[in-house]
């Protein structure tokens, strides 16, 4: 054991259970996963003897944090003598947040031999060194009153952290897990005990969802199990317990700002034609197939995070974000963001933010990221934070640029500042045809021939934005599938998502994120599992044995969106990068257990396991 961590009110929970009309118990495993980003980790280190300066090209999700860690924790070089460049990286999912030994060795070696040194991992090396994800064993009990309202939840989880504690690892099964155990439900008393353990396995750390998939899977399997035990419709049981008043303070630290859980469930049930399911199930049965339907009403906490809050919980860093807006002298715009792009499409979305506000074409906007020499300190990308935190930092910097631009325009147009509006790339005096284009405003700023008294030349502003709360994307996923009783193989019939991400800046990019997240959640539910044998050998160390989801393993997803705008940031956005990976697994397992009429089934629900669950273990 590493440590034994507790959250919640044990006494209140004990009391609730003593008064309960019904208790539902569930034991389950959250299977260990290997991230398998498309691009393996790689590093090129180059030491400049004359400048006594290191340059490191690396596959990092957070180059400034990497520089900080290499400098302050590992003494490779002082920060001002270390440049970290992480250009467009081929996927991370959390595994590239951490600083690994290989980049340190490459740096040391480049100085030792006086030549650039390169390392690239191969796929099996990625399997056995990139931080793994999940790996919990849990026993939980939920107490209900006679009206089927949840009155208490008790959770005990063993979390495997692997052989060593990786950078974020201790936060994942504690603050990112236990604080989500209220789910979408009004639960008055919760108690969670998490026991973390060392084992001779690859270290476990944040992986798409980081703690929230584990919480959501547990809760949503619990709710479906409870519905079956209490003989209630799974949708009805959830509705009875939904939180409907916001803001809502849960008993596990999180205070949800806004949401409408009935709206997403309504949308999902309509989209999948839930009313028509019994007829479809009967028809499938007549054709020899077992059909099932499963719900997952997830909520998660992302847009990480308020620095003071995480600091008080023991974090060593703050989780704000930075942005610099540079309007160039002839009007093109560079956005230097502390966020990092490794598959999220920031270049599109962030440019859109600028274009929407200033009315300039996106071709006039350049997003710059991933280089500690170019961009001011930023915390990088993970925890679905880039639009909520990184985007808001950009907005705050833009507001400063707009304010200065308006002052300059008002001065040049001899109008009052309050009468200036920005439209289609121009600063206009409202109600008149007097206007001046942004490039001219910029030129005026940089020539400084005629600026208001006391104004500094230039048109460039910075903002560091620290969020006041997490954001809380939530939604309902419903999965309909068929199980072949002869082989135990699962085939999807339909998969419907109704997500509330607040405002969507670019719907196509959101769709891509949801598809990817759902693929990973389904991968965990049906296919993926990192397995060790009794002697500590990773048996699944290549794609010959580790089943990655392929396009033909997945359904065509039907995505829907409801929206309650996030009150915590000016964009009203919540973030969407991890939701699919958080909510999908429970929907799949709930559907398979419904199809086969056996609630005892662990992930991954391979055909072998499902067949045994149908026919019994020989």
């Amino acid at each position, binding site marked *: 054991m590493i440590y034994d961590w507790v959250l919640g009110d044990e006494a209140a929970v004990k009391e609730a259970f003593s008064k309960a009309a019904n208790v539902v118990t569930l034991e389950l495993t959250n299977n260990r996963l290997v991230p398998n980003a498309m691009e393996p980790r790689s590093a090129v280190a180059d030491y400049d003897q004359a400048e006594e300066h290191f340059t490191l090209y690396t596959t990092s999700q957070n180059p400034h944090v990497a520089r900080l860690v290499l400098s302050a924790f590992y003494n490779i070089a002082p920060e001002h003598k270390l440049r970290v460049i992480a250009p467009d990286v081929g996927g991370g999912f959390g595994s590239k947040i951490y600083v690994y030994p290989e980049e340190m060795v490459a740096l040391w070696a480049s100085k030792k031999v006086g030549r650039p040194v390169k390392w690239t991992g191969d796929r099996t090396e990625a399997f056995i060194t990139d931080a793994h994800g999940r790996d919990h064993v849990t026993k939980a009990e939920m107490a209900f009153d006679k009206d089927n309202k949840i009155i208490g939840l008790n959770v005990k989880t063993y979390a495997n952290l692997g052989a060593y504690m990786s950078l974020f690892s201790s936060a994942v099964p504690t603050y990112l897990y236990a604080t989500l155990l209220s789910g979408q439900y009004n639960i008055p008393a919760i108690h969670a005990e998490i026991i973390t353990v060392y084992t001779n396995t690859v270290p476990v750390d944040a992986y798409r969802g980081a703690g929230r998939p584990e919480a959501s899977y547990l809760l949503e399997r619990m709710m479906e199990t409870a519905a079956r035990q209490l003989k209630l419709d799974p949708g009805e049981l959830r509705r009875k317990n939904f939180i409907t008043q916001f803001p809502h303070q849960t008993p596990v630290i999180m205070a949800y700002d806004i949401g409408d859980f009935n709206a997403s469930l309504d949308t999902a049930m309509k989209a999948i034609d839930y009313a028509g399911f019994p007829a479809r199930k009967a028809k499938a049965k007549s054709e020899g197939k077992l059909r099932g339907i499963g719900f997952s009403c997830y909520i998660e906490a992302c847009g990480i995070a308020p620095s003071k809050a995480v600091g008080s919980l023991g974090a060593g860093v703050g989780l704000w974000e930075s942005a610099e807006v540079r309007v160039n002298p002839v009007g093109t715009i560079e956005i230097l963001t502390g966020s990092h792009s490794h598959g999220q499409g920031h270049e599109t979305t962030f440019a859109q933010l600028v274009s929407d506000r200033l009315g300039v074409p996106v071709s006039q906007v350049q997003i710059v990221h991933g280089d500690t020499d170019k961009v001011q300190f930023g915390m990088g990308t993970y925890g679905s934070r880039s639009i909520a935190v990184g985007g808001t930092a950009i907005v705050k910097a833009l507001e400063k640029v707009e304010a200065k631009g308006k002052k300059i325009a008002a001065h040049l147009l001899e109008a009052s500042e309050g009468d200036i509006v920005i439209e289609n790339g121009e600063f206009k005096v409202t109600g008149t045809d007097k206007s001046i284009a942004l490039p001219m405003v910029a030129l005026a700023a940089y020539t400084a021939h005629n600026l208001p008294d006391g104004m500094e030349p230039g048109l460039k502003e910075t903002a560091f934005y620290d969020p006041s709360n997490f954001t809380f994307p939530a939604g309902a996923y419903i999965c309909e599938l068929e199980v072949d009783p*002869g*082989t*135990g*193989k699962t085939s999807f019939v339909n998969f419907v998502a109704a997500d509330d991400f607040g405002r969507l800046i670019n719907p196509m990019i959101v769709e891509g994120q949801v598809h990817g997240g759902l693929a990973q959640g389904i991968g965990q539910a049906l*296919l993926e*599992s990192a*397995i060790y044998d009794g002697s500590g050998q990773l*048996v*699944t160390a290549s*794609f*010959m*044995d*580790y*089943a*990655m989801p392929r396009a033909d*393993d997945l359904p065509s997803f039907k995505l829907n969106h409801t929206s309650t705008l996030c009150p915590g940031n000016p964009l009203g956005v919540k973030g969407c990068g991890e939701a699919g990976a958080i909510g999908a697994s429970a929907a799949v397992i709930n559907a398979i257990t419904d199809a086969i009429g056996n609630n005892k089934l662990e992930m991954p629900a*391979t*055909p*072998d396991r499902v*067949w*045994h669950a149908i*026919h019994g273990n*020989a």
Partner: protein
Amino acid sequence: MYQTTYHRPSTVDEAAALFAKGTEAKYLAGGHTLIPVMKQRLASPSDVIDLASIKELVGIEASGDTLTIKAATPYFDIMQSADVKKSIPAIAYLTSVLGDPAVRHRGTIGGSIANNDPAADFPAALLALGATVKTNKRSIAAHDFFQGLFATALDDGEIITAVSFPIPAKAGYAKMRHPASRFALTGVFVAKTKSGDVRVAATGASSTGVMRVPAIEAALKTNWAAAALDNVKIPANGLLADIHGSADYRANLVKVMAQRAVTAAG
């Protein structure tokens, strides 16, 4: 990968001669087994002799009662071949569920049977159809050719030149794909000859590789129908057990895949 010398002969005789000259030579066809093994440094042949572009080793011909597929014919060509689709469509189907498009464009029937992976698809087809393996030295009947896990009757340096299949009255293949590798978790090929004999071969199930299934053959000889196998029980002992399937699960799959193969055969 260790140092090696690569050769590209243009005839079978040239290939055989190169093999005899090398200290520890290996033949290369699609490369799906040899190359990964060399990359992992589990094999270090002195010479790699590429058979894939030897013209006399590529081609398909159906004439009379026999379908002949030359050894270095890639799976994709087999899958698309009008001769195969007409004479033994079950082989075209087998090839279409083998691996993935990338594998199908390089892998060869000769490579598959020379390797005799216990989960490969083609050994089941050869055994069930009673095929003959032709080499540059002799002809070997399928049941003599496959000799256990990764073992065949081939002598050192012997080159498979073609496989000839007697054309059956009915044949079918059904496969439960391994979710990761897409090899056969279990695959069953059933065939009924023109004279009414029934042969059934299963791959991916046994720890010694492709096997005949007498219990299923007997049931199908009496009644060529999936329902005839409803009460057949395949014993689990001797079958493979791993993280993807227990022995009793594979035993079940032998039966279920046989049923589906019979249905596919018509």
